């Protein structure tokens, strides 16, 4: 058992070490959502009247509505980053090293997810602190109550990233793939606007897409968790999506399927 934890620790440590060596990544992880918060919340404060829907009990300013979406965005970017790091590992040969360690393959992939989740949760909490400092009105208890939601959301988005890394073989293809995942996930969700607002404007198809988008569930789960409330359905959907993505990714990395590296004969 202790051997398993040591392998976990080694992978987590390496990912954290790499994270802090990449200063640009460190900065953008915090600046990106902060910029969104600043610019969008200021610009749309009076444009979007957000009416009272649970978990909110009163009229709320737009920055409060937007914060869960941005927390989700932090997790989403980290999820994509951790899968990017897997593609990087494949290119520098370290994926082979990881997968030839004496542990079951699924565990080794799970360990990578844990590392990605930890990094995501920490970044999200840092952003939450920034949002509070910037004057976003959230309860103090939010820092505690949101953690389980961040863990589940971070795990699911890292799983989806892992699944993506099965299919995206080369580093240079990655930017395109990330745009295809990140922006649709973010815009076709409740991150920026509530669903009733969209259906009011008549774009029913967007509502349908947003409803089946797992990122919507992540955002709603976080939204309720900030107020210490449990959103059962979004949590269940998020968990289900995460587990499914992980199982599919583990299958994709199965040597029988030969998805690993090239099929070169020599």
């Amino acid at each position: 058992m202790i051997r398993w934890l040591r392998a976990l620790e080694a992978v987590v440590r390496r990912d954290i070490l790499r994270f802090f060596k990449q200063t640009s990544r460190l900065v953008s992880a915090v600046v990106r959502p902060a910029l969104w918060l600043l610019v969008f919340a200021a610009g749309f404060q009076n444009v979007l009247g957000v009416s009272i829907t649970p978990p909110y009990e009163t009229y709320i300013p737009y920055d409060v509505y937007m914060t869960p979406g941005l927390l989700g965005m932090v997790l989403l970017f980290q999820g994509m980053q951790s899968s990017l790091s897997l593609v990087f590992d494949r290119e520098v040969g370290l994926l082979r090293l990881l997968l030839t360690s004496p542990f079951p393959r699924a565990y080794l992939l799970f360990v990578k997810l844990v590392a990605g989740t930890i990094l995501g949760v920490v970044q999200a909490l840092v952003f939450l602190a920034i949002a509070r400092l910037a004057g976003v009105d959230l309860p103090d208890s939010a820092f505690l109550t949101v953690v389980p939601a961040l863990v589940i959301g971070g795990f699911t988005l890292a799983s989806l990233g892992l699944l993506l890394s099965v299919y995206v073989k080369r580093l240079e293809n990655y930017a395109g793939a990330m745009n295809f995942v990140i922006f649709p996930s973010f815009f076709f969700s409740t991150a920026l606007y509530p669903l009733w607002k969209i259906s009011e404007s008549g774009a029913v198809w967007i509502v349908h897409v947003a409803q089946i988008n797992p990122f919507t569930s992540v955002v709603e789960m976080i939204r309720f968790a900030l107020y210490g409330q449990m959103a059962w359905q979004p949590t269940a959907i998020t968990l289900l999506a995460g587990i499914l993505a992980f199982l599919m990714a583990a299958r994709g990395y199965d040597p029988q399927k030969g998805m690993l590296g090239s099929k070169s004969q020599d």
Partner: protein
Amino acid sequence: MPPALSIDRLVKRYGPLVALDAISFSVEPGQVAALLGPNGAGKTTLFQILTGLFVADSGHVSLLGVDVARDPVAALRQLGIVFQQSALDPDLTARQNLIFHGGLHGLSRGDAAARADAWLREFGLADGASKPCRQLSGGMKRRVELARALMTDPALILLDEPTQGLDPKSRKELVETVFSLARGRGLSVLWATHLVGEVVDADVVIVLDHGTIVGQGTAPHLLAQTGTATLEDAFLALTAPIEGGNLA
């Protein structure tokens, strides 16, 4: 004592192409076995099966009696691998790379660090240990990878064309290091290469061509079999196209 490595009628196909055609051989404990083969012979496929990255269509591989397909985790624990392509985290130092690997094999951080330091010293890498690996020379990187493969006390070391891309001096040093380790510590080695000069001192030479074993035995045995004077000529004779390769 079971053989360090035993391969029994191993078959691997990629569609219609037969990459490995029922090959069998074994490596006894303490032996250095050379796996010689031209490019495309099936060496890398074999290594991918040995390391559990691919699964064979049929046949068996066992490491110290442990079946690789049945218990890959126990088998991998016995194995030290130097991959054909370098596999180091370029942003981490040599020492950090080694400690990371120790962790992946379930060593405690203290233990991994002590082993990393000992092996880096043994290989004359103590100076470079604190530099990011991307700054190391090709020869140094290879030695770091060899140190990494050795730090978990494996029963068998797999070397997949480890001298590829090295200059002649680094190449010679690496060959000498591996042979002296094998002789001094009783390490079993399977060394895949197409450079015959590297493995003339091997205890057993296995010549692989188009997925079949075309020659197997000690160097003198292969010379006698092919009626040649050097291992290089024997290798060329054994891997020559059929019509021109009717020997002796």
